[in-house]
């Protein structure tokens, strides 16, 4: 333990920005994510309009493209995690992912009205996203002392969320400014992605797995095999995190689905829904660092479970908005705080539980579980909602969440 703390102090002597005592790598990766999220959210906002009105694609085709969007990312995630760990090339693998997505913005220009080309570009863009996430998070962990993982991931997620918030606003402003020149949106989106890629390439440094190297000779990097990744699940700490994270994801609804159910139960104007996204993101952004720091001190698993407690309160509010219109800000606050307490904190907890040489693969494995869980949750919710209506369906999810909280509390003892 002494040695690990010591390694942290080594990192902190160099390459640390004064602000928040966060490693420069983390700040630069945050900037990369901010710029990339601006870029991709610009496209996400305008692509449906572009497909339907500029290219005149039929809705059936639209649906297929949408489906590709969702499924592609998970497939490449595990492979890229393994490659990054095997050859200790986290930055290079992340660069491949960010670079692919940046090129896709130009690809949209080139694809024109060719439906197959559009579907292909969309697929590559999602693959890029699948490739980059786990190695990026592994670099954040490798650049941070273990006792500050929560703060570091909180800082990264705050910047990331800022980008997701700005993207749609920039896109709407540019569409108005250029009188619906979709091609200009793609070019500007590419420029943001390009600068994000440049920040990663020029300023982020690959870190050899610093924490473990203290234990052995620095030259001796462990070579890994696919079997090692599978054996991660036998490791009690990580298994516990993957289990609880996976179970929670089974009870988690997507934001649009939750917002729209809330809109129906509270009966506020649907035009407020986009605003709700912005407010929730803003609260998440503001709370991500303080909650991350709190998690570091207080226990990340505890913070994570508490976050789901907040989400349970939000679900209860969707079923019964007992505070009238005041339910709206309360809901936004609960949801934003839930994100701040869970999103980066889960990755921080998992990163701390994973051995350095297998961290990327482990994170990829974990996020594959959670995205699968969310997919199953959406389908289950659809079936429940159809059979018994929305309050019942949300009630079942709420009960499920309570059960997982109880399980987590019991295991935590």
């Amino acid at each position: 333990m002494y040695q690990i703390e010591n390694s942290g102090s080594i990192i902190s002597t160099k390459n640390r920005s004064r602000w928040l005592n966060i490693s420069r790598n983390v700040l630069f990766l945050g900037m990369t994510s901010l710029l990339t999220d601006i870029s991709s959210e610009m496209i996400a906002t305008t692509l449906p309009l572009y497909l339907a009105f500029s290219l005149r694609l039929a809705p059936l085709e639209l649906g297929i493209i949408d489906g590709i969007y969702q499924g592609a990312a998970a497939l490449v995630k595990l492979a890229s995690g393994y490659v990054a760990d095997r050859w200790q090339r986290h930055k290079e693998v992340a660069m491949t992912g960010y670079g692919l997505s940046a090129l896709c913005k130009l690809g949209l220009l080139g694809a024109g009205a060719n439906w197959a080309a559009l579907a292909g570009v969309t697929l590559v863009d999602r693959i890029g996203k699948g490739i980059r996430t786990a190695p990026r998070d592994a670099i954040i962990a490798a650049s941070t002392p273990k006792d500050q993982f929560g703060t570091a991931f909180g800082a990264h997620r705050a910047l990331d969320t800022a980008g997701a918030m700005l993207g749609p606003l920039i896109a709407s402003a540019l569409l108005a400014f250029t009188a619906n020149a979709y091609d200009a949106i793609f070019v500007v989106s590419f420029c943001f992605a390009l600068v994000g890629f440049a920040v990663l390439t020029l300023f982020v440094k690959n870190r050899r797995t610093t924490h473990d190297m203290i234990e052995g000779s620095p030259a001796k990097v462990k070579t890994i095999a696919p079997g090692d990744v599978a054996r991660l699940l036998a490791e009690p700490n990580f298994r516990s995190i993957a289990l609880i994270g996976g179970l929670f994801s089974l009870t988690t609804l997507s934001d649009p689905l939750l917002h729209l159910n809330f809109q129906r139960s509270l009966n506020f104007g649907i035009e407020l829904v986009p605003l709700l996204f912005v407010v929730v993101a803003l609260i998440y952004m503001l709370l991500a660092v303080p909650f991350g720091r709190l998690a570091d001190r207080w226990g990340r698993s505890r913070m994570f479970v508490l976050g789901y407690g907040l989400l349970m309160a939000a679900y209860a509010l969707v079923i019964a908005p007992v505070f009238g219109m005041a339910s709206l800000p309360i809901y936004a606050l609960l949801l934003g705080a839930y994100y701040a307490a869970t999103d980066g904190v889960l990755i921080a907890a998992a990163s701390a539980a994973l051995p350095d040489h297998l961290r990327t693969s482990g994170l990829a494995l974990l996020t594959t579980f959670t995205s699968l869980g969310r997919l199953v949750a959406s389908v289950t919710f659809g079936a429940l909602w159809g059979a018994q209506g929305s309050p019942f369906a949300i009630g079942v999810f709420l009960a499920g969440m309570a059960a997982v909280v109880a399980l987590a509390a019991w295991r935590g003892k």
Partner: protein
Amino acid sequence: MQKNKSISKKVAGADEPASKNTWIFGGVVCMALLIGGGYLGWAAMRQTARQTPAQTPSGISAPTQPGSLLALSQKEGEENQVKIIAAGKNAESGIAQLGCNRVYFAGGNGLCLVPQGGGQGVQLMFARLFDSNFEIKHSFVSEGLPSRARVSPNGRYGAFTSFVTGHNYESVGSTASTKTVIVDLQNKAAIADLEQFTVLRDGKVFKAVDFNFWGVTFANDNNTFYATLNTAGEIFLLKGDVSSKTLNVIGKDIECPSLSPDNSKIAYKKRLKPGDWRPAVLDLATMQSTVLNEQRNIDDQIEWLDNTRVIYEIVDRSQNRKHIVATPIDGRGEASILLHDAISPAVVR
């Protein structure tokens, strides 16, 4: 301590000359600003140059003469502007300062559908109610992308359909679902989503999660309407009643209906295979269908020019242009272009 020193050296060794990278970064940012800013400026100029010609006299009114047409222009420079075509002519007689992705007009009231960006998986749209002077009187908000619009003959009720993708309950984004809302244009209030209507099939309540409705067409009594229901891959024709909020299944494989001016027939899209439709006409007295003499795929809610001819949009994929064509309903007469570069026709009765 020895080991620690060697590591700290290694970490320091990873540093490249910071100033050089900063210069490269400055160069990339400048390049991005030049490309992005330059392209934006050029695009803005290009778009305004295309949109200037609107030689619109302000104070233009909707036509009142039966047989006149409202449509949306697809000409370069006036995309999606509402244009007016006088009865018996096939050239425009005026352009209104109103842009829509779908338009309909009847009985002095019009509906103009426009998409409104939402972001993060939620797409919003407005259905704007306009009067004979093309002045907007009210805006209904809905979800999704604009698809179909209709107004009852006396202008009392309106209906619009949108495509909702992404967050669907049943499909997790694999297919698009539709949302159809009936609105009271006189009181400027939504009546109901068709999902809230009671659907009866052979006198029994018919219900499923995957119900999708579209293509409302109103009858001359301004209360009865027809619409399409899609469930479990099957297409049904519905006859609805606004005041009692009920829908009855009256037929199969009749998609996106449109009532003739005398209410004796329904023009619709006949599905040959998924994504491939032909115009057809159903006689409501005999329930017999006639497929029209049209070889191209159509994806539109058909409109009636008069009791013997229907009009609809045809996409010329090779040139990416859209035209409105007219076709006699006898099944023999050939389709001919009525209006170049236009969509979403509404005929004044």
